């Protein structure tokens, strides 16, 4: 009986959290369309999410492309299909690894930062101070951050795609003896417009997930330093899980 009650309570709490998150999301999106706007806050977050994430996203994509080239070569060479390496690298990077790795890296960097900074604002009454200064925290803190994530992530994914393909190119040409001209031609021939669409769609979705989870857990932080720590962990863990789930959903949609 006790067990059933516990499971029931867990279910109710889960549904409450989902409902609370949906309301949070509606309020966030509503404020995208309701003036006044704070372009400086938006631009600051574009730089924070986009520009400062470039090194970590680029490095991850570069090595992902390099590893992919090596592994696909070792697999394909056993049945003399080495020529497919460029195609596999291109498809795998643009459709899957570029968006997912960029998403996970940004989740670790930005999701955690947002949850920690907004959580600290919450526990030190800075959010309350905003309200007493007649400022809607959604308008000033949440909405610009989430919008910046949605706008910037597709660009980051695009850059990750280019660098990932370049990583595959370096390894294929320098280590595996591919002709650079042929490799580039193969890569170009295997490219389809849908690859870019998938990348942009995944980037925008992951950007929304990362920033909304970071803001949500930060905004509902309770307690002191311990609460901020929990919010940060939850933001990173749940945005990573959601990135993988939505990656599958979007792949299935565009399959």
């Amino acid at each position: 009986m006790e067990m059933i009650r516990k499971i029931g309570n867990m279910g109710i709490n889960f549904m409450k959290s989902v409902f609370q998150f949906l309301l949070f999301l509606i309020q966030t999106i509503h404020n995208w369309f309701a003036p006044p706007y704070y372009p400086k806050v938006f631009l600051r977050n574009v730089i924070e999410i986009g520009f400062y994430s470039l090194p970590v996203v680029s490095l991850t994509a570069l090595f992902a492309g390099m590893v992919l080239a090596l592994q696909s070569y070792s697999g394909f060479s056993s049945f003399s299909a080495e020529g497919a390496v460029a195609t596999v690298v291109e498809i795998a990077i643009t459709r899957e690894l570029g968006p997912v790795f960029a998403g996970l890296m940004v989740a670790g960097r930005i999701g955690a930062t947002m949850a920690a900074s907004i959580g600290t604002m919450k526990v030190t009454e800075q959010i309350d101070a905003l309200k007493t200064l007649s400022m809607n925290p959604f308008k000033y803190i949440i909405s610009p951050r989430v919008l910046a994530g949605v706008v910037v992530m597709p660009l980051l994914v695009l850059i990750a795609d280019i660098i990932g393909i370049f990583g595959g190119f370096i390894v294929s040409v320098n280590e595996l003896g591919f002709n650079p001209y042929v490799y580039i031609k193969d890569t170009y021939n295997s490219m389809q417009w849908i690859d870019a669409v998938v990348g942009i769609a995944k980037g925008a979705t992951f950007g929304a997930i990362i920033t909304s989870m970071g803001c949500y857990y930060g905004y509902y932080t309770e307690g002191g330093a311990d609460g901020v720590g929990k919010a940060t962990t939850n933001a990173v863990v749940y945005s990573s899980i959601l990135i993988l789930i939505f990656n599958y959903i979007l792949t299935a949609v565009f399959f």
Partner: protein
Amino acid sequence: MINKKEAVIELKNVYKSFGSKYVLRDFDLTIYKGQSVVMLGQSGMGKSVSVRLMLGLMDVDSGSIKINGKEITNFTEENFYENNRGIGMLFQNGALFDSMSVWENVAFSLLNIDKMNPDVARKIAIEKLADVGLPAKVANMMPSELSGGMKKRVGLARAIADNPSIIFFDEPTTGLDPIMSDVINNLIVRCVKQLGATALTITHDINSAKKIADRIVMLYEGKIIWDGTPKDLDNPKNEYVEHFVKGISL
């Protein structure tokens, strides 16, 4: 000048609970225009909760709260943002925005709500900092570089930046040494007088209360149990208030 005909803050039969525990029960308080009221009470008696209810930072369970004659218990969040214009608040720990410099903190509502030119807003911020005894060189510092007393002063400058008609002070002297406490008390008295504002201060510091208030109320178990002048506090004719003033447990 106190105008006893014009109630600026009016709470009637207010109830607020957390779970099964009632923090405020049948709470009544009326503050008139120009009054500087201090609410005394032990920790956990509901002083901060009552102020948070007046600012719309918490929802009331039942009862009526009127600010400037407007019933706020049925307000939407947007209504509160609108209503809070003209209200200043000094938080216990300052609650300064740590990503902004001191002058940006002070001029926050001027820059972001009133959309004032940054140069003009900066000038006003420096004037307000001077009003609370801080030199202009502090303006470019970050909150992390300030002492506790300076943070309170910056918080006070921010609270008065928009010339509010109502100001709330939450434990303004907590955590400060006696000399700095006196400085803050004097600043509060001066700022409230200069603005001609109505003020509500919550504290458990008797010396502060006597200095700031022209009326003192005592909160106990969610209700106002005593109401008098600072002079009345010397002979309160109430056992609990007497113990509180002397710092003796019942």
